[in-house]
């Protein structure tokens, strides 16, 4: 793909990234950080591509290390985010900006 096409994709992704997370309640700041942390683990795709075209011990070592680290990022990132969010299940369906909810949120089952 041409450099210009890649640059257009980049610019559009910047705007999507800004728009997609407007107004996040503070209890979700950490899970969101952790979840987006897992998404940048997509570098694993690049690491795999680099390792598969490498020649010689130096390049192999760089590629191997890249795949290893990227895998930790992806797998650990999604698992740790899921663990954080597991704690919210069945409760906390409203973000309550500035006040109490009028009634008990209905989505949760009582535990």
């Amino acid at each position, binding site marked *: 793909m041409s*450099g210009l096409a*890649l640059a257009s*994709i*980049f610019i559009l*992704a910047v705007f*999507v*990234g*800004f728009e*997609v*997370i407007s*107004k*996040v309640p*503070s*209890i979700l*700041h*950490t*899970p*969101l*950080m952790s*979840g*987006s*942390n*897992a*998404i*940048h683990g*997509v*570098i*694993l*795709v*690049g*690491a*795999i591509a*680099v*390792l598969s*075209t*490498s*020649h010689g011990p130096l*390049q192999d070592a*760089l*590629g*191997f290390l*890249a*795949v*290893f*680290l990227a*895998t930790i*990022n*992806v*797998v*650990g*990132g*999604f698992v740790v985010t899921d*663990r*954080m969010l597991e704690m*919210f299940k069945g409760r906390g369906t409203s*973000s*309550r900006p500035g*006040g109490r909810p009028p009634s*008990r949120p209905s989505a*949760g089952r009582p535990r």
Partner: protein
Amino acid sequence: MSHPELVGAIDIVAFVCFILALKGLSSPPLARRGNLVGAAGMLLAVAFALAFTPLHHLLLLVVALVLGVAVGVPAARLVKMTAMPQMVAAFNGVGGGAAALVALATFAQRGGLTSDGERVAILVDVVIGSISLTGSAIAFAKLQELMTGRPIVYPAQQRVNGAIAIVIVAFAVALLAGVGGLALVLVLVSSLALGVAFVLPIGGADAPVVISLLNAFTGLSVAASGFVLNDTVLIVGGTLVGASGALLTRMMSQAMGRSLTNILFGAFGAVVTATGTAGDGSDRSVRSSTPEDVGTMLAYADRVMVVPGYGLAVAQAQHTLRELVSLLEARGVTVTYAIHPVAGRMPGHMNVLLAEADVPYEQLEEMDVANGELARTDVALVVGANDVVNPAARDSPGSPIYGMPIIEVDQAKSVVFLKRSMRPGFAGIDNELLFDPKTVLLFGDAKDSLAKLVAVVKAV
């Protein structure tokens, strides 16, 4: 469908998954599903990358993947809830490292014979990825208490950091002028140094904001890798994280009532005043109390507000706290929990912890609501929190935490602190409230103290 078209189609599915994941993660009912959608998109993208890998490196690849899973999954599964922020820092750091390695490996594979555009992308990738790697490592060390959580400052620090940045630029220009591999290695080394130097002066209490910023950095370096490798899924995935991460960093610093500039560079000026106020507190006396007195006080109160903090998480005392609160409620005491947005070491830390102990959601009050009720609260029970109730944030303009919104427990009729010691809070600032005549302290591990209080309240 031809092979490039198929890859393109898979990439599109992966982008959509990533966008939906971020969207889901910003809304409580959809958050968990959002994370799973992101994971599904990732699985798809990685599976197709593997499907097109030549066989001659398959063994190496499989070993690296298996080792990565073998390290990543147990680390993520076994980490304690209290250590979550540093775990995120660690995962972020390795991601930044991977992005920098991808750029280095590509440069090596092409023998330095890259176009100017590619060199710029490689440089951006190496510089930002390396800063993210070492910066995250320092944030990890601060949160894990492998080193002091206080800001580390030395004379002319900003100049030193500026000098490192200039060195990076100089080597980068040399690389663009065609000096070759050595220049890139020097860029790498000086960027790794800058990551360390950049995070050292930031206090441990501010580390989550820094981790969020470094997370955005890693996103950008991944996007730069996408330009190097001509891969759209890296560009989109990395850029989404870079942009949303930047916005999230801003939201997190706003939740602490501070500007990002103040968090990143505030320590340079604030240290003198911080030590100044800390010095005069040591020889004054505080009122230390017994579990019997505090338990009786709670049992005969009408309204009690619990303000939990990091100490509760460290002691894993949430279940004991819940037990105490249930006993008090059975006696007719109205009990609520006041949740400061940044109590603990990550936003939402207390919500997660109390949810684990089955505390009903309706009992958790956000800071503004809690502050409206404190004047008619008999006892504010501060469990392992300090900075988030420190009136210095409201009253002393010289304090490093000045301007941070606090839970104003000093408005309550009396205040009980459960504390391990007189050690100041994570931000390293003395709390005047501890010396207030209406404050009593109950020293000890939060879980032990709460268990003693449970016994006392049962007996009353």
